[in-house]
């Protein structure tokens, strides 16, 4: 089973870092490497029941690459939309991103909103509640992640994988509801473990 997942969001919100954390379990510290165009990777994940083959489209956030990104939206089964909790404008742009997604992506694409860099408590400018509120408004599941600490990173990808797997196996009955439920359940438990 091959899952095509695309990471989108403003430049510098940590899309590549999130992917590297998920793939290699490491954090890309040091200088900021900006992705050029689209970066295509094929990580795989071995779960208790099966081997998941991902095809990850790590996109560049810069405006000048939008046209390439648009061309590959429709191939994606799932989209991870990221903003940076320490950067207000990346949060404000989420609405624009959602408009773009509705325009170019498939109707039934699995979408998840992630507030990244949740470890940076001091620099935080976007409250968790704001993220939750926005997600509710648009009916998308939401969680805060941190590529640095690893918080919720695997969960985000797993949730998507589960959802896509579920869909491919049966006729979908209220898929969104299930994803929300799963995310909320898992996030609480992982929250307990972390604290």
């Amino acid at each position: 089973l091959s899952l095509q997942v695309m990471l989108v969001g403003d430049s510098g919100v940590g899309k590549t870092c999130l992917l590297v954390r998920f793939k290699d379990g490491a954090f890309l510290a040091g200088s900021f490497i900006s992705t050029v165009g689209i970066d295509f990777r094929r990580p795989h994940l071995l779960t208790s029941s099966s081997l998941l083959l991902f095809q990850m489209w790590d996109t560049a956030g810069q405006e000048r690459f939008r046209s390439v990104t648009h061309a590959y939206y429709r191939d994606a089964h799932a989209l991870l939309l990221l903003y940076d909790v320490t950067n207000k404008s990346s949060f404000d742009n989420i609405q624009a991103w959602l408009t773009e997604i509705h325009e170019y992506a498939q109707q039934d694409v699995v979408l998840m909103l992630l507030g990244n860099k949740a470890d940076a408590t001091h620099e935080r400018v976007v409250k968790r509640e704001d993220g939750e509120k926005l997600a509710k408004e648009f009916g998308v599941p939401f969680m805060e992640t941190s590529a640095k600490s690893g918080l919720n990173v695997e969960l985000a990808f797993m949730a998507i994988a589960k959802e896509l797997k579920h869909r491919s196996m049966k006729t979908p009955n209220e898929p969104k509801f299930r994803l929300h439920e799963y995310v909320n359940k898992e996030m609480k438990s992982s929250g307990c473990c972390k604290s």
Partner: protein
Amino acid sequence: MAADVHNSKVNWDIQNESLAPIDKLRIERSDSPTPGIVEGTEPGAAQEKAMFVHTQSFEDLTAETRDTVDGDQEVESCDLTKLSNDLSQLSTHLLGQEEEQGEAEEKGEDQKVEMFDESLASVTSQDSSPCGREDICDITSDAWRNQRKHVFVLSEAGKPIYSRYGTEEALSSTMGVMMALVSFVEADKNMIKSIHGDGYKVVFLRKSPLVLVSVARTRQSEQELSRELCYIYYQIVSLLTITQLNQIFERKQNYDLRRLLAGSEHLNDNLLKQLDRDPGFLLSAVTCVPLAVSTRDIITSSLQAAKAKNLVFSILLAGNQLVSLVRKKDQYLHPMDLHLLLNLVGSSSSFREGEGWTPICLPKFNPSGFFHAHISYLDSSSDLCLILISTSREDFFCLSDCKHRFLERLWRRNAFQNLLEALQTPTYPVDLVGIPELRHFVYKSKSSGLYTSPELPPTYLVDEEQERLMGLYQYLHGRIHNSRNPLRYIYHCGQRENLLAWVTSGFEMYLCFSPLGTKVLAMNTVTKLLKWIRKEEDRLFILSPQTY
């Protein structure tokens, strides 16, 4: 010490004549090439068609000089009376300075006159020089001011787009002044080209809708500096295309271009660093990994076989050296475009892990359209990077498949291992040539657009020394290609090394000798070196470039 190169010119011509057999075809690829060989038969020349657009390293600028020659004369005639006082004062000052530099001796006909002309032309714009200088002083620290070379890019509205050092915000007023200078001179239907001050040059390059400015304390000529600015300009065009660039500023004159260029600053930074270090940028040429012909042939044919409908170029690189290049029939790559690709790959680590897919404009090929490049490393531990360039935005999976077909073929024919082994020694020591006094050289075959150069000897391994040697090559290159007074050869005696630069219709070479080397030795070395390169040419160059 008078190094009168012109005496030896006679020598060569005679030798050349006596060596040329009646049947000219015979010596076309002679084993003992002489400097008199014609283009296309020099060591390193491709046997069939070359893979690059044929270029002179100065094409952009000579074109420009021609454009502006009339303008210059106009200035000289109309402004001379007004500025005559300052002019004579300044030009004598400049002349004096040039003479002081003469630890080296070069002779070219009319050199002095030439210099005088240049200073005249540049000083015509001098009425604005004091303010430009002071403003830079005012803004920041000494450390910033003392940088060897500053490069600024601004829009016609005077908005900062790029600065090599320091933040653009802090420099917005400086850039405003730069724009004021440009438009002040343009108001009189004229063009500001450079300002020459005490130990530094300010060079302007006007490429509407952008203005590029270089402030340098190097010995590079005005021409060389504006060539570097050209590179920066093309770098920006390669990200946006000229069409988009024009549209943006037509729509909104005071647009902040940094928004669109976000994340690309390191491309300019790296490009400027390369320009200071890499002789390829100077010569409009690229260098190849030394590789056995059989191995290179397998690689090339594997690239050839992995073709696709929209594929235009397949390029395999090892670091900033070329391994192989296959192109669509009748489509040629310009060395400058390849340099931009090298720069893109060299300055982004993001291609290391996955497969990159990015739009890129190759400005020399077509400044108004995007190609789409599939960029990936063959394996994560080596520097082998494959670039596949297609005309279609939708081609990602198709090119990804090409890459796999290419790799499979390499493995099947055992070429991959051979290639990796060859990469263990990507350079060669200069000792192989067998001339003890020869420290380093750069040889470019003009018809193939390829150059070869040994590794730097220990003396030049430190960054500063490397840049100093490159500075000398740059200086000689600037002198020999001076558009108003081109020379054929220069012998340059310095305190720490002697250099010989030689340009013919077939090749261009720069040799660096120990300070104990003599001119006679240098002259003899040329023949010996040409002979050596001929012997090694199938390893050092790509002699039979292929198309799909």
